[in-house]
């Protein structure tokens, strides 16, 4: 926190540095530090999260609102431009001149890159524009180099928040201890937790989440009176396999925290019954949809020139050496008529080209099993890509007794 002493050092008459850029990984305390600092020092500030600002108007409004109250915010015209904002800001600021530096904190500043091209450069030198003692603080998880616009701009002051070390994590996590247990006990628990998870996860938020979830299990032998609080070794023996399991399930959000808690309450032997999210991959599809999907998969992964070989009933000779597996390159787009041509040769019985066949293609697109490559508006010769995995298509073709591997160029 010592980085910040210079901020409050700023003199009244000398304007502070117009913009500061702070970066660091997720959960490295950027927002928290800024928030506490500005609160403690009672500095006038506005905190804006850029995700929330679906339009710049919201951004402007929030800034004006927290500096000058709602009257100023209501002065903004509908769909305001940057110059509207600057105008109103100047007007308001001449009425109530700054006694101290005003701070605008923008969280998730990386989203500013996607807004109007002039917004970021303008914000960086907002001080000049509004002639007020104002500092923009940008918080981001991305380094400044990725922000710099092509046209160049004012260089902000860069600050880096390094990741927490293990010791620091330990200290922070030990802060939110359970009220009915001693601090030492909780910190020994945190120690064990970090021992298991530190190698895979250093995100403070995740660790805190995990700590909260598994604590009750940790306390279990204590409540049963088997172990004393100080007997860390026995406690460790008890919790360790449990934490390992947590690493496979809760950490990956296969199982929600609520279910995890329920699982802990259940007996050990039953808990295996609960399946994670990714276990449910089976999708039930109408018969022709399955074949359409198979045809789409074939069209995506087979080169178009090989279609003749697979679907005309001729001898399969003339092997060309393949240099690259198509499966490594990912699905390729194919036109609708190729899809249908393959579909008709794949389906065993005759199918009328009914409207519902076509509507099934578009419903496959809405289900995200196919993706439309060409633009929605393009009605003639739309192009698609197949978006399902090899395992998925194999499972599908097994249900309709279709040996897809025989038809794949890569596996010939």
């Amino acid at each position, binding site marked *: 926190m010592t980085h910040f002493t210079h901020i409050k050092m700023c003199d009244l008459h000398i304007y502070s540095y117009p913009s500061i850029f702070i970066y660091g990984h*997720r959960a490295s305390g950027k927002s928290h530090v800024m928030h506490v600092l500005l609160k403690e020092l009672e500095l006038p500030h506005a905190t804006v*999260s850029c*995700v*929330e600002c*679906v*339009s710049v*108007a*919201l951004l402007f*409004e929030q800034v004006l609102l927290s500096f000058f109250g709602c009257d100023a915010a209501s002065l903004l015209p*509908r*769909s*305001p431009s940057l110059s509207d904002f600057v105008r109103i800001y100047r007007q308001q600021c001449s009425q109530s001149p700054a006694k101290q530096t005003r701070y605008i904190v923008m969280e998730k500043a990386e989203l500013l890159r996607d807004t109007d091209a002039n917004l970021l450069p303008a914000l960086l030198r907002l001080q000049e524009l509004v002639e007020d003692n104002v500092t923009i603080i940008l918080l981001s998880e991305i380094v400044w180099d990725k922000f710099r616009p092509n046209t160049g701009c004012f260089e902000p002051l860069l600050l880096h928040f390094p990741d927490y070390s293990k010791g620091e994590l330990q200290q922070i996590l030990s802060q*939110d201890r*359970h*009220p*009915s247990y001693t601090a030492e006990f909780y910190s020994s628990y945190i120690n064990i937790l970090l021992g298991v998870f530190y190698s895979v996860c250093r995100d403070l*938020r*995740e660790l*805190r*989440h995990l*700590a*909260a*979830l598994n604590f*009750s299990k940790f306390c279990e032998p204590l409540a049963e009176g088997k172990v004393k609080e100080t007997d860390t070794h026995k406690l460790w023996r008890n919790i360790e396999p449990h934490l390992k399991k947590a690493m496979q399930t809760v950490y*990956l*959000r296969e199982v*929600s*925290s*609520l*279910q995890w*808690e329920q699982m802990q309450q259940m007996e050990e032997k039953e808990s295996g019954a609960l399946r994670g*999210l*990714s276990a*449910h*991959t*089976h*999708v*039930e*599809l*109408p*018969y*022709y*949809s399955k074949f359409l999907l198979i045809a789409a998969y074939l069209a995506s992964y087979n080169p178009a020139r090989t279609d003749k070989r697979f679907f005309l009933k001729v001898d399969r000779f003339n092997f060309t050496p393949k240099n690259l597996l198509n499966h490594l390159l990912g699905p390729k787009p194919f036109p609708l*008529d190729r899809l249908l*041509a393959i579909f008709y040769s794949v389906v065993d019985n005759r199918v*009328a*080209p*009914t*409207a*519902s*066949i076509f509507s*099934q293609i578009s*419903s496959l697109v*809405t*289900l*995200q*099993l196919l993706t439309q490559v060409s633009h929605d508006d393009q*009605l*003639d*010769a739309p192009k698609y890509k197949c978006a399902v995995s090899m395992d998925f298509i194999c499972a599908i073709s097994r249900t309709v007794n279709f040996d897809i591997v025989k038809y794949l160029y890569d596996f010939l």
Partner: protein
Amino acid sequence: EDHFTNGCEGADNSEIRFKLCQDLWHKIRADTEVLQDELNRKILDSLLDFTRKCSSTRQHSDWASQMRASEIPTAALVLGVNVPDHDMTFQSLSELLQQSVTPHVASVQAKECGALKHLMKRVLERLMDTVVTVDDEEEEETEQTSTQLHKSVHCSLSTLCDWYNAKTMKSKTGTPGKKRSSPVRDDPQQPPVVIIFKDLEAFNPKVLQDFILICSRYVERLPLMFIFGIATSPSTIQHMLPHSVSSLLCIELFQSLSCTQHLATVIDKLILTPQFPFKLNGKVMQVLMSIFLYHDFSVRNFIKGVQLALLEHFHSQPLSVLCCKKKEALLNVMQLSHHDLESIRHLLSFRRYVEKQEPQEQLNLFRDDTHLKEVCQKLIKDLRKYHKNYYPVLRCLHTLTSSLPRYPLGKQVRELHLICLEKNVWENEDYQTAMKLLKMLAKDELIASLQRCVEILQPVKSKKMKKALVELEELLAKFKQLDINSSWANITLAPRSHLSPPESQTLNEVCYYSSSATVRRHLNATPRTSIQAALSSPYYYLQNESLKTEDGTVSNAAPDICIAYKLHLECGRLINLYDWLEAYATVVSAAEGNNPDSDNVRKVEEVKHARFIQAVSELEFLGFIKSTKQKTDHVARLTWGGC
């Protein structure tokens, strides 16, 4: 009603028929709705429990739930791919939620939320019931049409928060205090705010991620809750949301009944029951089933198909006036006109019946209207009896055969039903194998399934079934005494007398709708085929004698577009426009009787040129060709194949 009467076969009793049709349909619809509510009840109830639990755990202040408070409780509702059916589920879900858990429910669809601000706007609008402005939107959309009460508000969740606090404050204190207050932590009555995403897959992942991020910033102040409607599989959540976002959610999974089970129940309650006089014959049933299994998995569409068949039946069959409750039917028989009776005499099944009668009786049936009416009454009674017996026996046979290895007579009752509808089931090969297998079945299994048969037959009131029941019970007793061989005949005989196909029943045309082609044409349209038919044989649609040709060729007098179409079939993938024009001009001038060798053939007339261009652009509009940049003066064909 007018539409129904107009162009209806046998207009004199059309009004009665219309009324019958409507009554029947209302009854069917009401029944299916009740049925679907029941089917959905389980999952909806568990969802409701989930929301209640979530809103109650929020108010707990113990250590663990406080640590978890930043997660948004989320229900992932897996509904299967039969998307058309989902609407009804969501409808009843949000109604139930509003009734019992929270007044604040908003459901959004992907297609109305292309961008984050639209999603925000929809959510806010639906929750707050006001007009929300999104700033750079067109004027008319945010136009303040509503009253002053509906103050237009800014589109952000903080607005929603304020609104929510005001709302809960108001309901608690009873005073309209609309002040900007910090959240009331100790308020026990905080109904959750539920947002339903009807079709998760179709949402833009970026939009969804941002929305969840925003929501998680407010979850401490606003008891938010999500319900994701998922059509494919729950792993889509992981595909759509990165870990950083999904870690903000506390997802619980709910799996709904699979649509095939759903359909099985609907068929069971709707089709396989003597309750409704209207029936579908085997072919129509087959068409509807194949649409369901092969195309859409939609129970709603299946019921729509039944509705269509119902309407068609009452519309096209004058005798459908008899397709109603027993008493009404008997009454209606007495009111049949001479014309109707004539048509009864022409019915195939009736003629078969007549042929079996004595010559004197035959004469009477043809001459005497009143006698015919009496006979009809008797026949209708017979038909009803047949139905009453048919379904229980069908179910019995199903219980006996459904546990056999490799399911010779199908796994589902509907498959067996289809077999029975088609022809005499005992002549079927699979039936023979099934019976053989049945004989090899272990004794206790056989007794168990026979026991179930007894249970099925028990509630049936008809005399014959009573008799069959007694027989069956005797049989069961015998089985228990290890006396198997003597009683086989009984089992195999029972279906013979009751499972004969409905076509063999006299007057079946009254109740059975048989035009499968109509249903297929209406429900499973083939636009491409009909366009091609129109283009290649215009006579089919235009009914103009001059267009009639023998061997599928197009006559010279056909419309321009047909000629152009015919000529384009002869080309490869790329068509040279000039060659096409030349060929076209030759054909047309031949039709006008000009000598092809004369001068003006070389110089194509302007009128013909224009007609050609029009025909070509019409073909382009229909999607047969498109312009291409590969070669100048060429168009590309979009269809393959040809003459």
